[in-house]
């Protein structure tokens, strides 16, 4: 059983086997490919079709007889092969197709309609020099950004170079000898392309129809507009690609090498440095790799896709997309896993409390802050998180601000309560982390000098550490708050309703209802 098609040859309807149809179509295409003049080629083909119709009619006895491949072959024999048909045309005085005089295997510069982004200039150049058209496209685009003259060169080439339309011209463009077998090969390639994508062919046909209907003027106008839009899209696309590449480089350097963060200090800081306090270096490295891939894969995919679009790269390494998606998911799982695991280090709270008795010889206590330490930390700290934590330059010590509250101890002895708090994987871990926080102060007779910061010497163990102080003083004690205590005072209740900020630098007395300003 064979599939048969119905064809219209010069106004007559024939039933034809599918293989016979393909043979006939190839034959006619081959003939038309030899003629550069579209009108002329159409006319010749019409005449030849009419003759073939006649021959079919003569050679089939009944009206419904199906045309077989053998019959097509017989008719082709009668009509002659495409090369002979074109050959007579050459002898008839048409010399424009021969190109160069002489017999050397010529190679001519054409525009390649099959390899075109805009006008096919780069495709033609590529075919002529036997290099990837991509190289010329990159050259044109790069030169465009370095001055813009290349666009002019492109337009000139576009205007000057003829389009390689016939199979013979396409062979000439690639410098392949123009003979029957090559032409047939070329035609077969094109034919197979069309057959593989029948829909595309139908579409382009309808486009052609539409163009015909719209008239020459609008076609030209439309084409100019289309090219204009294409040029703009290419420029935009190239800018996007450049932006993408810059972002990729930024992500990589930010994650691994380090960037100069102006506000934080004179040193280059990478994501690894920033994350250093939260966990051990191995997990952080893994996390950074994971996060980087999470960002880089879509970025690179975007840039790659754009480049493919702009430069019309058709080939794609097998499995590249699937590989990228898999890698991205691995990166996602890895990042989420590490973050989940690491954040469990912050899940529980723990504390460590110590009370230190103070012996004050008289009933006056002066409280001040260790100014040297404050200066040191503020001068040399590298990263300052939320005004709360400071990292030493070499990232070996973390300093944290302390907070001071002041309450009455009633009739009891004065004391300083130091409450250290931290997070941890579990209660014990959290308590242990709290215990590792170091805090020092100096009590010298009537003078209490508090360090403004506690510190941890093991920055990997940063688990939201906090230290709060509570100074308990008996009633009637006179309290002198030095001006420099301003930053550590935290929500201290006082009868004068003075804010923390304004309590420093003043003298207070503890009454049975709370702190009260002394009259001066």
């Amino acid at each position, binding site marked *: 059983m064979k599939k048969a098609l119905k064809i219209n040859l*010069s*106004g*007559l309807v024939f039933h034809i086997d599918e293989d016979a149809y393909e043979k006939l179509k190839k034959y006619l295409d081959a*003939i038309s490919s030899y*003629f550069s003049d579209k009108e*002329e080629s159409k*006319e*010749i083909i019409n*005449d*030849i079709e*009419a*003759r073939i*119709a*006649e021959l079919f*009619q003569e050679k089939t006895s009944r009206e419904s007889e199906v045309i077989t491949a053998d019959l097509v072959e017989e008719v082709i*024999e*009668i*009509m*002659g*092969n*495409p090369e*002979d*048909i*074109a*050959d*007579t*045309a050459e*002898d*008839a*005085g*048409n010399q424009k197709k021969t190109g160069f005089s002489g017999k050397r295997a010529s190679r001519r510069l054409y525009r390649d309609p099959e390899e075109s982004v805009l006008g096919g200039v780069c495709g033609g150049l590529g075919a002529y020099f036997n290099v990837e058209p991509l190289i010329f496209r990159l050259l044109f685009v790069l030169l465009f950004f370095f001055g813009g003259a290349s666009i002019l060169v492109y337009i000139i080439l576009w205007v000057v170079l003829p389009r390689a339309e016939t199979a013979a011209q396409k062979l000439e463009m690639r410098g392949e000898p123009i003979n029957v077998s090559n032409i047939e090969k070329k035609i077969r390639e094109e034919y197979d392309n069309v057959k593989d994508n029948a829909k595309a062919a139908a579409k382009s046909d309808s486009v052609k129809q539409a163009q015909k209907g719209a008239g020459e003027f609008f076609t030209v106008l439309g084409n100019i507009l289309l090219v204009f839009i294409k040029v703009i899209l290419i420029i935009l696309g190239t800018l996007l690609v450049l932006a993408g590449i810059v972002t990729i480089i930024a992500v990589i350097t930010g994650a691994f090498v380090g960037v100069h963060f102006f506000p934080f200090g004179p040193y280059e800081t990478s994501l690894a440095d920033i994350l250093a306090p939260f966990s051990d270096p191995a997990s952080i490295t893994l996390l950074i790799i994971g996060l980087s891939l999470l960002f880089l894969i879509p970025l690179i995919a975007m840039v790659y896709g754009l480049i493919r679009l702009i430069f019309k790269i058709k080939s794609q390494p097998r499995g590249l997309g699937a590989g990228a998606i898999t890698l991205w998911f691995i990166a996602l799982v890895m990042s989420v896993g590490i973050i989940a695991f690491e954040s469990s280090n912050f899940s529980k709270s723990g504390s460590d409390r110590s009370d230190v008795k103070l012996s004050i010889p008289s009933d006056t206590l002066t409280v001040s802050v260790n100014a040297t330490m404050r200066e040191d930390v503020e001068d040399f700290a590298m990263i300052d998180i939320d005004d709360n934590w400071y990292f030493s330059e070499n990232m070996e010590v973390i300093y944290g601000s302390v907070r001071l509250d002041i309450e009455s101890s009633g009739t009891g002895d004065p004391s300083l309560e130091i409450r250290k708090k931290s997070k941890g994987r579990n209660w014990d871990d959290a308590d242990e982390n709290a215990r590792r926080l170091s805090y020092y102060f100096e009590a010298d007779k009537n003078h209490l000098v508090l360090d403004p910061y506690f510190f941890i010497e093991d920055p990997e163990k940063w688990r939201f550490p906090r230290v709060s102080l509570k100074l308990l003083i008996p009633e009637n004690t006179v309290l002198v708050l030095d001006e420099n205590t301003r930053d550590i005072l935290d929500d201290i209740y006082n009868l004068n309703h003075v804010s923390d900020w304004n309590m420093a630098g003043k003298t207070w007395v503890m009454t049975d209802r709370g702190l009260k300003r002394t009259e001066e």
Partner: protein
Amino acid sequence: MNIENTKAQMRKGTLELCILAIVNKKDSYASDIINTLKEKNLIVVEGTLYPLLTRQKNAGLLSYRWEESTQGPPRKYYALTDKGRQYFKELSESWEDLVGVVDSIIANK
């Protein structure tokens, strides 16, 4: 040198003149011309004729009209234009000269 090739070249060179001659005698359609040429062994395959006809028509030597046919599609009947007749006259004169010259050269040998 290939004798068949040389013969083919000779035939080809005269083909244009022959077409004009056939059409000059009687307005003809493509198949008429083909049959005449085939009979005289001037062409081997039919397809070669069509580009010639089209080029001659485009050069203004031939004109054509459509005529209904009792069998099959309408036929293109070719006729000589004034320019074609002039062209034919010149070509046939040049042919006679050529035949004379060639004959005399061959005879002298």
